[in-house]
């Protein structure tokens, strides 16, 4: 699925229809999953987001959020930073430059689909 542009399918022509491909074929499965979509949508408007703030926004359990964050981190879309403030652990998340590119591309594809 991965291509030259992050985690987007190749944009070559569909079989039997050279040069034209419906935008829905370019939807990234990695980003389109509902929880991961919510995570990336939240991170896109932030420089950094605290894990708790993200959890409250996305409204999933800690374990479910951690699992999806790990998937996005392995894909290179999200960077995770762990630190301590006093004795309290703090986990901060941010989109990587590749993550911002892929998110922008995902929105562009959705706008194309929404436009009919």
């Amino acid at each position, binding site marked *: 699925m991965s291509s030259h542009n992050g985690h987007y399918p190749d944009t070559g022509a569909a079989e039997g229809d050279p040069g034209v491909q419906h935008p829905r074929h370019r939807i990234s499965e990695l980003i389109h999953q509902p929880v991961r979509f919510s995570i990336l949508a939240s991170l896109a408007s932030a*420089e950094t987001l605290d894990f708790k703030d993200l959890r409250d926004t996305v409204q999933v359990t800690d374990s479910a959020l951690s699992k999806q964050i790990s998937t996005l981190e392995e894909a290179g879309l999200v960077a995770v930073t762990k630190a301590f*403030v006093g004795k309290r652990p703090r986990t901060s998340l941010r989109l990587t430059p590749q993550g911002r590119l892929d998110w922008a591309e995902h929105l562009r594809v959705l706008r194309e689909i929404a436009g009919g």
Partner: protein
Amino acid sequence: MTSSTDTQPTPDEARALLASAGSYGRSATAGAGWPAVTFLLGNGAASSLGTIAMTLAASTAGYFVSMVAMLAWMGVMMGFLIAFNRSTKVGFGKRWTVYLTAWLVPYIIAMMVAGSSDGQNILGGSIAAAVLLVSSVSCAVWEARK
């Protein structure tokens, strides 16, 4: 709304996803700016009032008492920021550099005025304090509107 597969949304689904993306973004950062705004206002108030106190102090002891009180409040504000500034809106890093520069430059000038005043340069100290006030409030308002 139905789609042929989970990864092939219909136009209606795509519109709904775009709307929800904007909603998630606004919700995630809704409360992100207030620790920085609090810091900017508190730090501006402490440095501005501290400048006036140090300018008016006619003795070395009075000068240092004013300075210690000002630095104590600035330290409290910094600690507050570190403890509560968990999430930040996009572009905060660049804006923060601008905010600190906009405060630091008049602060250095204010300390030079206050340090040479010896209780005499009331006009200079007042102007320096006013510049600190305007600078800090402007930055706080800018950040609050982001």
